[in-house]
């Protein structure tokens, strides 16, 4: 009988113990230690795509994402430092510069995780030049809109569609700067026959990239708590 072992570690100098196999982010959250992230959604696989949760680990020369790094015995983690803040600010700058996030005219203005992150990281401007790419808005679906201008490629929509809904309508095409969210075989969303119109992707999207048609800006609030609920329900049944 294999029982789960308990590991002890330090986070920001605080002695902590948690179950083997937990990620640094999970353990930090258990102890109310805030680590910024835009791609982590409770109940979905962690992929470390946004890089905002990078932390310093004693003895390691590189920064590692807290959401995909498992704890180990004797580990010592720093979640907040001048160095980390600088990296996180640059990451956020690159996200804003890479696409056309014109916050003032966004459906998610006022309830956007990307926008809120500016304030969390004390940022009042973007440190690199904007790229202004020419991107599409896919409004072919009856109920939802995908605005690629506002996408940060966190992949939450891809993961929820695959892991929770089981449809795998969404995926990512291309690499690097050319990466892009697609539906089915890079078709218009309205023509993607595998889409069940469940709307989970819209709810987990941290920005205005996915929105519901016919709703005012003030009504575009996202609800994410259903993910971990659905997942635990399924685990109970299995």
């Amino acid at each position, binding site marked *: 009988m294999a029982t789960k072992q308990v590991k002890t570690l330090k986070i920001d100098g605080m002695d902590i113990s948690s179950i083997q196999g937990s990620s640094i982010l999970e353990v930090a959250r258990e102890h109310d230690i805030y680590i910024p992230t835009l791609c982590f959604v409770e109940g979905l696989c962690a992929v470390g795509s946004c890089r905002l949760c990078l932390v310093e680990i004693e003895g390691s020369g590189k920064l590692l994402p807290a959401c995909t790094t498992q704890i180990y015995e004797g580990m010592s983690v720093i979640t907040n430092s001048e160095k980390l803040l600088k990296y996180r600010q640059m990451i956020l700058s690159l996200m804003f510069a890479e696409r056309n996030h014109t*916050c003032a005219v966004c459906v998610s203005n006022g309830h956007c995780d990307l926008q809120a992150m500016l304030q969390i990281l004390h940022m009042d401007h973007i440190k690199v030049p904007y790229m202004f790419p*020419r991107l599409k808005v896919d409004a072919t679906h009856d109920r939802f809109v995908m605005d690629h201008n506002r996408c940060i490629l966190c992949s939450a929509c891809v993961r929820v569609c695959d892991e929770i809904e089981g449809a795998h309508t969404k995926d990512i095409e291309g690499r690097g700067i050319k990466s892009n969210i697609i539906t089915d075989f890079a078709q218009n969303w309205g023509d993607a026959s595998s889409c069940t119109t469940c709307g989970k992707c819209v709810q987990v999207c941290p920005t205005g990239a996915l929105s519901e048609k016919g709703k005012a800006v003030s009504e575009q609030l996202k609800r994410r708590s259903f993910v971990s609920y659905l997942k635990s329900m399924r685990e109970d049944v299995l």
Partner: protein
Amino acid sequence: MSSKVKLATIWLDGCSGCHMSFLDMDERLIELSERIEYVSGPYIDRKFQDYPEDVDICLVEGSVSNEEDLHKVCIIRERSKKIISFGDCAVTGNVSAMRNIFGPKECLAHSYEELSDEDSIKEPIDIPKLLESVHAVHEVIDVDYFLPGCPPPSDAIFYVINEVLEGREPNPSHLTRFGK
């Protein structure tokens, strides 16, 4: 009178909303007026040519979009000690910079030819030429402080001006953000 801090504001490619929000400081303007002399900007009848040589603080609303903006922004940098990017258009380009996705030619053709009732479009005269792309102010000149928001809330404006008056470095991110 001469001991007062000289404050100027300037309106480049923006909607004037930031200047409206400045007025929303309401009675706090009276408080400010005891320490500040307003020397240039849209609130008073004074031509830009008369922008003083020794401005202490200048708030810049709007992005740098045409040759006139470029000319003005270079002059205010020479003549002002502290420059504050005032509002999202100045800080990020914002709505003004949405044309960068298409470029000025395509934008002008769509707005003034395709959507026009006129058959022939006259060559514009005596208006400043659009730059190839719209720039945030700090891409063109050195900017000392940033005050984002569309428009920045009056509380944030009041906070930033006061911090600068006190010789402190303002970071208004607790009061405002892009799109606020």
